[in-house]
């Protein structure tokens, strides 16, 4: 090993900020100064921060954020050549691992390898305890694995929060000639990009977890269903699957246990609804992705009518650590009913965008500190949970985010998004954007969702043109309530959540549009009336 290692993040977000160019520049600097034997440059996944490309210098444990090529040169010439820290580029960033514990509550379980290892190198994964959990699991009885997962209290990180151990147990208990493991990597929830960064930064943790799941429930085939637009994820997972086969972690007689497991990637093609588990199964089966009526649930009748475990990427990434360290270790993080951590994504008008992994139960207010506060004007509202989540104002920022938060305070954890919106924005315009999304993504199978989303967009358009009445607002609430009660699947049942939270928390602004024909953000405009043309 060379004395100095420079880590540079090359996930999709970083690449868009120039990571590839910076990498090339660093390499040429090392060459120019004849430092080939002294400096190693390692490409890794995200280190969590998106104000610039993160460059870390080891073993000094110093993190920099570089925005320009000049920054990169400065870091190299000052830190590497002269041994001086570049203070103005250093990130005193609370969401990066630092030795100063007081600075951060971050606990890295899911993201333990991201930003530390080269995701395309299976040996680096193995060197960091990779596939050790699989070896341990293969020596355990399936019942004991299920017991451990149940005891850990791990719940699905895709949004619904169903206990993972129970899901596995249901599938384990069915009798069938064929069972399947499916990884839901169809991350379409606007604002969410954690699964992408997990797949780009640590793809083997997903594969390892899926093989463990397969062994546990008696499944010999698995699919990773990835969003078609996620080229970086597909590339890294593809390489990881190939290498896992080479090393004998996939395929026949895995680690001499007699257990066989095959794994394949399937691509989505631009349909948000395919994140719904039964719609996703329909899509793998070669159909349009329309959800099925439940029950039967996938553990009884899933892919091709066979028992199937479907887990989200983040859920799976927890599994190897739980197997290795045990349920009690896992339970020390988070809350009683929501043990473990959550990977949060910052989006919208926030100063620090990126991901951070924190224990369950952290408050929205604390998260906003990690996000560096609002950018632009003043903070108007935060949407938590993703597009199907809740919009809240400052009065609810003390809410702790865990699976109980929605039931207790009406604030949703969902997929872990914190979307900041500053006060240059109008509530009606935000509501319209959200409902246009759901109108477009509704699969059309059931009426409350197909028609409800269309009607909601129409009413919101009317409001934006100052032509709505209070009856329209009442109708909007009724549409939302009807869909919540009667829609077929999670999509239709959840579009009312953001809509109603906007109406409940920002009712004054709705009424201002209706009664005073006024938009405080000055976004809504009155449409000049067209002269009626005479009909002959």
């Amino acid at each position: 090993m060379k004395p100095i290692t420079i880590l540079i993040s090359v996930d999709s977000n970083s690449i868009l900020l120039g990571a590839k160019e910076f990498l090339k520049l660093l390499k040429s600097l090392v060459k120019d100064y004849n430092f080939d034997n002294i400096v190693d440059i390692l490409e890794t996944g995200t280190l969590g921060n998106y104000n610039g490309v993160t460059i870390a210098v080891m073993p000094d444990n110093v993190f920099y954020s570089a925005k320009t090529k000049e920054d990169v040169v400065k870091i190299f010439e000052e830190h590497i050549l002269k041994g001086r820290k570049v203070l103005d580029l250093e990130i005193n960033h609370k969401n990066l691992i630092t030795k100063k514990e007081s600075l951060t509550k971050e606990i890295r379980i899911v993201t333990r390898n991201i930003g530390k290892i080269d995701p395309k190198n299976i040996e680096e994964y193995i060197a960091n305890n990779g596939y050790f959990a699989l070896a341990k699991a293969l020596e355990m009885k399936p019942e004991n694995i299920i017991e451990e997962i149940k005891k850990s209290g791990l719940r699905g990180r895709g949004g619904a929060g169903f206990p993972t151990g129970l899901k596995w147990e249901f599938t384990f208990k069915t009798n069938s000639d064929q069972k399947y493991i499916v990884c839901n990597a169809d991350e379409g929830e606007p604002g969410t990009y954690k699964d992408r960064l997990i797949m780009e930064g640590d793809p083997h943790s997903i594969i390892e977890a899926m093989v463990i799941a397969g062994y546990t429930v008696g499944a010999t085939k698995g699919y990773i269903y990835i969003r078609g637009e996620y080229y970086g994820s597909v590339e890294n997972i593809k390489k990881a699957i190939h290498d896992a086969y080479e090393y004998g972690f996939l395929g026949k007689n895995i680690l001499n246990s007699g257990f066989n497991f095959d794994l394949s990637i399937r691509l989505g093609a631009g349909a948000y609804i395919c994140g719904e588990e039964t719609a996703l199964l329909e899509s793998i089966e070669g159909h349009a992705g329309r959800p099925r009526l439940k029950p039967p649930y996938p553990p009884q009748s899933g892919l091709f009518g066979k028992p199937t475990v479907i887990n989200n990427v983040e859920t799976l990434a927890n599994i190897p650590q739980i197997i290795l360290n045990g349920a009690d270790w896992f339970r020390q993080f988070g809350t009683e009913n929501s043990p473990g951590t959550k990977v949060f994504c910052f989006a919208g008008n926030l100063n620090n965008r990126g991901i951070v992994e924190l224990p369950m139960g952290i408050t929205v207010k604390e998260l906003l500190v990690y996000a560096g506060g609002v950018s632009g004007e003043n903070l108007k509202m935060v949407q938590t949970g993703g597009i199907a989540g809740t919009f809240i104002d400052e009065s609810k920022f003390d809410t702790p985010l865990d699976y109980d938060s929605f039931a207790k305070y009406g604030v949703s954890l969902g997929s872990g998004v914190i979307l900041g919106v500053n006060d240059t924005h109008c509530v009606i315009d935000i509501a319209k954007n959200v409902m246009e999304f759901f109108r477009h993504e509704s699969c059309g199978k059931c009426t409350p969702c197909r028609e409800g989303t269309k009607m909601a967009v129409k009413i919101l358009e009317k409001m934006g043109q100052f032509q709505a009445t209070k009856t329209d607002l009442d109708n909007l609430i009724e549409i939302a309530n009807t869909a919540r009660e009667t829609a077929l699947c999670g999509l239709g049942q959840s579009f009312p959540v953001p809509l109603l939270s906007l109406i409940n928390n920002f009712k004054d602004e709705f009424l201002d549009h209706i009664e005073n024909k006024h938009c405080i953000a000055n976004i809504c405009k009155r449409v000049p009336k067209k002269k009626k043309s005479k009909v002959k």
Partner: protein
Amino acid sequence: MLTEIKKIISHAKSERLEERDILIYTLHKIQETIEGNYIPEEAVKLVSEELNIPLSKVYEVLTFYSMFSIKKRGKYLIRVCTSLPCHVANGREIIKTLKEELKIDFNQTTDDGLFTLEETSCLGLCGVSPVIMINNEYYGDLTPKKVREIINKLKRGENI
């Protein structure tokens, strides 16, 4: 062209774990291969025959998913994110600039066949929003100025 598509289909067949699990995968591959970034009628027929799936079913799938097109697209397919994280981060200005520069609306292609403009929902790059995608490449942290530069470079046939 048809022999190439046949090759794609038979390759896909060899990669499947189960009957029919590769329909969407195959369609992606075909769309990537064919000039114009779409799936023409002949290709649909071939898929239907080779994979033994009724033509109507293949069309149902094709038209359900927004990434697929049965209409020929421009040389550069520009997908612009209209979801809330980009919307609040000045995404509206980006859309306005794109429409002005290209002089087309969504789902239209410029007369010279160079650009097609489409809406997309979140691309999972909210850390650097607003974001667009041109063919297989992403562009983030956009400003109207950056957008104009990208478009003009493409118009001049330069690399971006």
